[in-house]
């Protein structure tokens, strides 16, 4: 029995020491990678993180997603962010990261999917509602755009970006009265605003 306890103790001790050593290695790699990143040496930073890479480590995947994006390796960046998303599916942080390379590559369906997934987790996220609304607006899907801009304006009624887009979406959906009131509100926030003035001129025609 005594020998068994001793064996268990030694095994635990070795496991803890190994964990500590691994954590230290990762910490060192992160620290050095920040220094290289500061110098603009993204490739060097990537290579350093790769020396301690484990596919099941969220932080490593997140960091590699970011560094690859900065280095211009967009497909690789998406892969690492996707891995981070699989590891922590309820986190919105890696999903936000993922949309950067995806949008550079013009993968707007992927971007939209990520945004909609974020909104399932965090329905009132103003920044994501705004960006989702913008994608729909650019696709001329004004009905969907309306839903998202309305959410932004409902939480922040005097926010410039939300207001101007909500005004234009109202205009596009044939609600000139609402659009006019919104453009006027924009004018209070940003007097002589060109976009709001353009909207008002179109309505008054």
């Amino acid at each position, binding site marked *: 029995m005594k020998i068994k306890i001793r064996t268990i103790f030694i095994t635990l001790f070795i496991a803890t020491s190994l964990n500590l050593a691994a954590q230290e290695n990762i910490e060192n790699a992160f620290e050095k990678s920040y220094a290289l990143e500061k110098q603009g040496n993204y490739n060097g930073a990537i290579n350093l993180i790769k020396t301690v890479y484990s596919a099941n480590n969220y932080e490593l995947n997140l960091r590699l997603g970011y560094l690859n994006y900065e280095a211009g390796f967009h497909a690789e960046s998406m892969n690492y962010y996707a891995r981070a998303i699989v590891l922590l599916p309820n986190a919105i*942080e890696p999903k936000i990261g993922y949309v950067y390379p995806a949008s550079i590559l013009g993968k707007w369906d992927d971007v939209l999917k990520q945004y909609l997934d974020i909104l399932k987790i965090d329905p009132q996220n103003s920044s994501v509602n705004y960006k989702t609304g913008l994608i729909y607006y650019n696709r001329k899907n004004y009905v969907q755009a309306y839903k998202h801009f309305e959410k932004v304006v409902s939480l922040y009624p005097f926010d410039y970006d939300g207001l101007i887009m909500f005004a234009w979406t109202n205009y596009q959906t044939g609600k000139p009265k609402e659009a006019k009131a919104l453009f006027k509100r924009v004018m209070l926030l940003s007097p002589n605003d060109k976009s709001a003035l353009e909207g008002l001129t179109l309505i008054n025609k």
Partner: protein
Amino acid sequence: MKKLLLTTTLGILTFASFGQQKVSDAFLDSYTQEKSGNYLGAAMSITSVYNQASYEHNLRLGYLKYMCGANTESITYYSKAIELMPFAIEPRIGYTLPLAAMESWTAVIEQYTTILKIDPNNTTINYRLGYIYYIRRNYPEALKYFEKIVKLYPFDYHGSLMMGWTNYQLGKIDEAITYFNRVSLNSPTDKSAKEGLDLIKGLDIKKK
């Protein structure tokens, strides 16, 4: 009769348009004054056209009065804006500024809690509320709010650090170590995380 109606409508529209122009000018003037640091003048510009039923007027005056240091007046205007748009969180966030300046923390908590009913995952508010509870040593409550942040942003410095400390205070040492270690990845040589890890090491030595 028709002519009279047309003249009256035209008169109202012109008056409304004139009113709108006056309000726009007042806002423009108030922004100019604000830029030069004249908050009192900026507030007076808005007061000259003030309409208590206008959300924008109340919001702007709430902010400008706060900047002037007139906290009670600021609270009154923000309250009015909240009344006008109860589902907006914008005036509620503004409202907490003069309250915090007056150290009315219970009222701040109340407002933050209401904001979270409207926007449950608001990271800034969850952090601030967690922080107030942490300072009050109400660690179980603090944990609820910090937990929400790291669930959405697991690699966020502030959320992870406070999760480290809150878990430490709650005696959840393993969890505290995990979060302090995560902070060390985010911010190598972080003093606060190191302090937390050193305290935990001290506990281990005492146990032995």
